[in-house]
């Protein structure tokens, strides 16, 4: 087999035993890598119905098919566990050196079972596995942990995926971090923390053998060359932060916990302002010629010295969404999340829920008592010091931070049960995962894309905002094309998430990002790597299978049609200002859109998958378990 070793490494933390599972080439042809293979490994290895923070929930890591080769932006891996935040599938992607080093160890994937009796790290040194004491690493931030491990092992080439204090403390939206990149969103850090696993380190010394290295080399060079041109200029120059002003103009920039979609100080938190005042360096993942990571630092002010990578989603969540107009504070907030090892989107949206709950008089000053402010403090929107303190309290689960560390869905449910309030009405999440920086009230196609998302409120798994924003459809109304558009968008995204290739390369194959532009080129890359004979249809199937296995996982865990939902606010509270004012997605609209979407997928009206559909995809064993 080319491009793969054919081997998955299993590690049981309870027994400290390891074993090797060999998979046939046909299995790889179906699940490829990234989120698809990780989700499939989770499907095969979890105790169905288990508590996400129990030993029965495995950590599944699947490397990319192009990791360790020169294929631009192919140095990525997928990570899957049952999510503590959603109770459904948690699948994330991260890029860079960890993925490449893992590839060179010769393992296509890792499955970590059980729970350790004390804090450890796993060190995978080619084929050897070591369990190392992690006592000295406890409390360290993510980057400091990586550096400490390199120092300890005496080799710069050791790469680690780690958790920060948030993961150790069991924050429900804690991340796994490697090389400054986050496997974000669904709370993997909490799963690792529940297993007392501080880090996985890898050192790989083996070469990656592919079927046709000359062709792969030439194609890679051409794509790399193209990627320095106009197709990626947005990512290379301002980064995704350039979206701030666009979203503001469209009235879609979440402001003060999604109360509005325009921010009066948008200019001050724009990508342009960031570039001019705070940018210090552009950084790439391993194997990436684009370099979108916009490292930014606060040179002065109360948060002087804070530094981190800034992109749009983290920026909206911790800037306009908190009513904060000072990018130095935003940098500090995101740094607190990145180094603490937690999701900056969920973090920001949870803090904004707390701020609104305070402004509505439900939370009082004394609810915010902490070591730093023994009398409590008043977290109004725009109060940067309060926001930073709250974020640190979440990371450490100090005071009210303990409640907030559970995410908006649980936190609001707890408060509403205790105080008889209705704070769920401004808890911005779908399936428990906090909402992204695109307000769905003004993006009706996206509204169904996000409602049906298998990992909850995520803009990465569904790009159904594209037809809305590009003007291909009327973004304020609905019609019978939307179900198909949403299904098509998520299957398209799933191809990239499975290979994985970063989506920022999507125009660099032929100039066109659509399937006709990209799939033939991607098939050629796959064939040069593996020696297979993939064509357009095979590439399309990659995405469909990836999405199907994740959906099947959710169904097996008890997912119901009613779970495909939007935050209350998007269904009931129209915005009063800006280009998207006056709109909501009504329950009737949403249910109709869901009907359309399930029909487009070939599923039943209840959103279940027919047996025949699964068998058609070669997923017979899945059909047996959840097919109808």
């Amino acid at each position, binding site marked *: 087999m080319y491009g793969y070793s054919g081997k998955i490494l299993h590690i049981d933390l309870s027994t400290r035993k390891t074993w090797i599972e060999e998979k046939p080439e046909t299995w790889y042809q179906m699940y490829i890598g990234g989120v698809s293979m990780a989700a499939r490994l989770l499907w095969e290895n979890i105790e169905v119905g288990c508590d996400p923070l129990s030993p029965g929930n495995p950590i599944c890591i699947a490397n990319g098919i192009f990791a*360790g080769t020169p294929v631009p932006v192919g140095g990525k891996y997928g990570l899957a566990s049952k999510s503590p935040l959603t109770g459904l599938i948690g699948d994330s992607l991260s890029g860079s050196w960890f993925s490449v080093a893992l590839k060179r160890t010769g393992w296509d994937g890792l499955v970590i079972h059980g729970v350790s009796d004390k804090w450890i790290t796993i060190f995978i040194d080619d084929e050897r596995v070591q369990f190392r004491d992690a006592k000295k690493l406890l409390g360290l931030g993510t980057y400091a942990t990586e550096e400490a491990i390199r120092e300890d092992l005496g080799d710069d080439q050791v790469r680690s995926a780690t958790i920060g204090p948030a993961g150790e403390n069991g924050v429900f939206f804690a991340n796994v971090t490697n090389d400054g990149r986050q496997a974000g969103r669904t709370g993997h850090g909490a799963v690792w923390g529940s297993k007392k696993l501080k880090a996985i380190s890898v050192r790989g*010394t083996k*070469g990656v053998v592919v079927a046709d*290295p000359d062709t792969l080399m030439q194609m890679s060079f051409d794509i*790399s060359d193209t990627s320095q041109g106009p197709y990626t200029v947005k990512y290379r120059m301002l980064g995704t932060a350039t979206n701030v002003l666009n979203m503001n103009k469209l009235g879609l920039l979440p402001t003060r916990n999604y109360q509005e979609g325009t921010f009066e100080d948008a200019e001050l938190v724009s990508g342009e302002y960031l570039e001019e005042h705070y940018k210090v360096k552009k950084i*790439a993942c391993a*194997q990436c*010629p684009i370099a979108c990571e916009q490292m930014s630092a606060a040179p002065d002010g109360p948060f002087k010295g804070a530094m981190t990578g800034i992109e749009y989603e983290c920026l909206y969540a911790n800037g306009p969404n908190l009513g904060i107009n000072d990018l130095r504070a935003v940098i500090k907030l995101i740094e607190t999340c990145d180094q603490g090892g937690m999701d900056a989107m969920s973090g920001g949206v949870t803090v904004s829920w707390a701020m609104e709950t305070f402004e509505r008089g439900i939370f009082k000053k004394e609810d915010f008592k902490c070591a730093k402010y023994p009398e409590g403090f008043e977290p109004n929107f725009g109060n940067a010091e309060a926001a930073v303190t709250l974020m640190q309290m979440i990371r450490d689960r100090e005071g009210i931070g303990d409640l907030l560390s559970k995410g908006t869905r649980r936190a609001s449910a707890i408060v509403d049960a205790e105080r008889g309030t209705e704070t769920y009405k401004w808890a911005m999440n779908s399936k428990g995962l906090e909402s992204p920086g695109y307000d769905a009230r003004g993006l009706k196609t996206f509204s169904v894309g996000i409602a049906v998302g298998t990992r909850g409120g995520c803009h990465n798994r569904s790009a159904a905002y594209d037809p809305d924003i590009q003007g291909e459809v009327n973004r304020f109304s609905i019609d019978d094309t939307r179900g198909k558009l949403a299904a098509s968008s998520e299957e398209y995204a799933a191809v990239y998430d499975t290979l994985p290739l970063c989506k920022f390369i999507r125009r660099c194959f032929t100039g066109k990002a659509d399937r006709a532009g990209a799939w033939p080129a991607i098939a050629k890359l796959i064939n040069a790597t593996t020696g297979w004979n993939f064509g357009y249809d095979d590439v399309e199937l990659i995405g469909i299978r990836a999405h199907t296995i994740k959906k099947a996982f959710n169904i097996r865990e008890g997912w119901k049609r009613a779970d495909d939902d939007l935050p209350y606010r998007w269904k009931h509270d129209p915005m009063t200002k800006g280009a998207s004012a006056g709109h909501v997605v009504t329950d009737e609209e949403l249910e109709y859109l869901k009907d359309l979407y399930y029909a487009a997928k070939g599923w039943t009206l209840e959103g279940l998958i027919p047996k025949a559909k699964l068998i058609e995809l070669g997923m017979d064993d899945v059909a047996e378990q959840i097919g109808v």
Partner: protein
Amino acid sequence: MVTSTSKYKYVTCDPELCIGCQLCEYICSYTKTGEYNTYRSRIRTIRAEEILITAVACRTCENAPCVIACTRDALTQDAETGIIHINAERCDGCAWCIEACDFGAISINPATKLAEICDQCEDLEEGPQCVKWCPKDALELTTPDQRAQRARRKLAKEDVLGA
């Protein structure tokens, strides 16, 4: 003895332009070994701090300390190009050259256990492949004098034109 690097060309990296993508390592290992293995690259990217990234290859020192240190006369320096040649028959992988190198530019091949060093792809007409591949033009085959000249010109322009 003071190491001097004034005379010969070598592959330099501008840390302001380098993004840490490692593509130089991929192309180097592929050119030299036929496989993709950044572990076998003769140019090495370094992330010394979160935002301090650069790449290092042989600096073709004059009176190269690695050549002097070699106890088996396995290393020789090309008088014209400054490139260090390693005689695989003589090298026994003792690593004295690695200790002598101020730039960490020499490594031991884990398979053959012999020393390896950047040879600027001297057998290829188009020169160092890493320079050809670098997507940000951070790498260059140049001499310190040429770099200094450019720095002076840039400074002068900035002073006069304010650009």
